[in-house]
């Protein structure tokens, strides 16, 4: 059988507030295969954002392991994790998370600066990506001058900057109207189909499942389906 690109093995994440411990993830097992588009659906408070943090190496499990192409990531240093995030994972967030005082193009080139790419190449690549997300001509616009849908497209372009294999999207349509939300989902689905990206979408919106190869349902920190 084919090896999963992402594999979670009995992952626990526990938050402490004073003496109270809350297990947000309680033994999650999960396989995500290469070149698929997967949705993880769950109500708010089900632990799906925590799950995304772990999948995206933004956080480490308190117990259990996370494998990326068979490599155990739980022993890696912060810098190694940052390096993997920069090179192999692209993030798309509900809040767009663009840097407000930078232009669209500068937001897109930023991940390339962290990977020490040369400036000319980074700008060239940034322009191509803007074109890919249909935002040609918006290079110098600040996030505040763009609509929600446009901002999310900039964020997707930024996620693609270093040609990652994996795109992780956390409620990518949550702040958008249905028309824009649809456009964003089509864009993500296209990245999967045309660019062979592995896409994981976390959402509470069950309509999104329609775009996906498989759907995982999470409830109270456990995978129920």
């Amino acid at each position, binding site marked *: 059988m084919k090896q999963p690109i992402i594999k979670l093995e009995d992952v626990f994440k526990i938050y402490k507030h004073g003496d109270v411990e809350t297990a947000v993830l309680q033994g999650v097992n999960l396989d995500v295969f290469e070149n698929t588009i997967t949705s993880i659906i769950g109500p708010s408070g089900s632990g799906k954002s925590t799950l995304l*943090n772990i999948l995206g190496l*933004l956080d480490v499990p308190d117990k259990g392991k996370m494998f990326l192409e068979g490599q155990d990531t739980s022993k890696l240093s912060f*810098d190694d994790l*940052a390096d993997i995030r920069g*090179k192999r994972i692209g993030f798309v967030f509900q809040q767009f998370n663009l840097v*407000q005082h930078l232009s669209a193009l500068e937001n897109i080139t930023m991940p390339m600066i*962290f990977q*020490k790419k040369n400036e000319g190449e980074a700008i060239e690549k940034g322009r191509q990506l803007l074109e890919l997300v249909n935002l040609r001509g918006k290079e110098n616009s600040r996030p505040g001058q763009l609509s929600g849908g446009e901002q999310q497209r900039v964020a997707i372009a930024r*996620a693609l900057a270093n040609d990652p294999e994996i795109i992780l999207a956390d409620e990518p349509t949550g702040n958008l109207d249905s028309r824009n939300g649809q456009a964003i989902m089509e864009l993500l689905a296209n990245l999967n189909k045309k660019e062979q990206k592995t896409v994981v979408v976390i959402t509470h919106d069950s309509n999104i499942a329609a775009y996906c190869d498989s759907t995982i349902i999470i409830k109270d920190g456990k995978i129920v389906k």
Partner: protein
Amino acid sequence: MENFKGLFKIALKNLKTRKLRSWLTIIGIAIGIFLVVTLFSLSQGIKEAVSSQLKSLGDEIITIMPGDEENMFLSMMGGVKLNKDDIEAIKNAEGVDKVFPYNYTAVTGRYLGEAKQVLLFSLDLKDGLDVLKGYQGFEVSSGNWPRPGRREIVIGSYIASKQFSTAVQIGDIISLDGRKVEVCGILKSLGNKNDDSMVMIEESIFREMTGIDTNSGSQVMAKIEEGADPAKVAKNIEESLSNVRQRKRGTDKKDFMVLTADKMGDIAGNVLGTLQFAVIGFASIAIIVGGIGIANTMFTSVRERIREIGIMKAIGAKDSSINYIFLLESGTIGLIGGAGGTLLGILFAKIIEWYFTINPVIALKAYISFPIILFSLLFSFLLGCLFGYLPARSAAKLKPADSLRRYE
């Protein structure tokens, strides 16, 4: 190796986003650097002026003063003198060529009804004039030196042109403490008000007018023989003077100073060095205050940008990249402040220098050199980095998942 160019651009953008705050912090650091640059260049200028003045005195001249080395100013003001025996002893010391006692007193000069206090110096036309001309750079720019036994004076250029509301000319009559004397020469300017305010009169007339015994002196200059070693001659003078004093007065306490040009330079250098150190020390406090301003600004900035830091980390920034972005920001604040402060400091020092060219109390040149400028720029950049270090580290240590959860 980090992509410093890219990180620097990000840092600059951040500073531009918070323009007012950045400028206020920059002003804070600029004031500190301004003070240090001004005070350093002026105090260094004073040091150089004094040392060049001492150098103009020449190695061949040894100055002997009464009093204790530790209490130099006390004996200067107390009117203690070296008497005739002392002067004879100095003259007899091996290696001494000529001896010239220095006598002066304040008198009231009156010119065209206007009265001013001036310092009247006794001029020994034989040995003294040689020393003045040959080793101290005195020259008459117009007229002549006084002739023996005549009531004639030479005056400094400041007295001639600035002291009285009407310029004094050669051949004019000035009254000194009520006695009329004729101006026979005007001295070339030596570039400082003290030297240019001298009035000199021949020794015998000085004695007659003031009643001061010119065989003694409040200061004695000795010119050493050609080729003699100043240090050795100074020692000879010391011995000879001690012997005479012990024999004639029965005192074995050494209460006089024998100063070679080197030694005077040392003493002056020490005094001025301490002064400079103190002055710059105080100015440094302003720099520290500016530095704390940088730290404060940077901590605020980190706090405001937690989410942004989370974003940068999510898209692949390592701890070190975040660290460098913030260090480059604080370093740039320091550098711009340093550049502004240095520029203002040089400008201000030059204004002071210009003021003293117009009012030549002392020949003060602002001391400015390229290494000093380079050093103050580098220093202010590093200062920014130093005070930005803790804020930058706190930013770099933020955990990406936690910081992304913060909403602005």
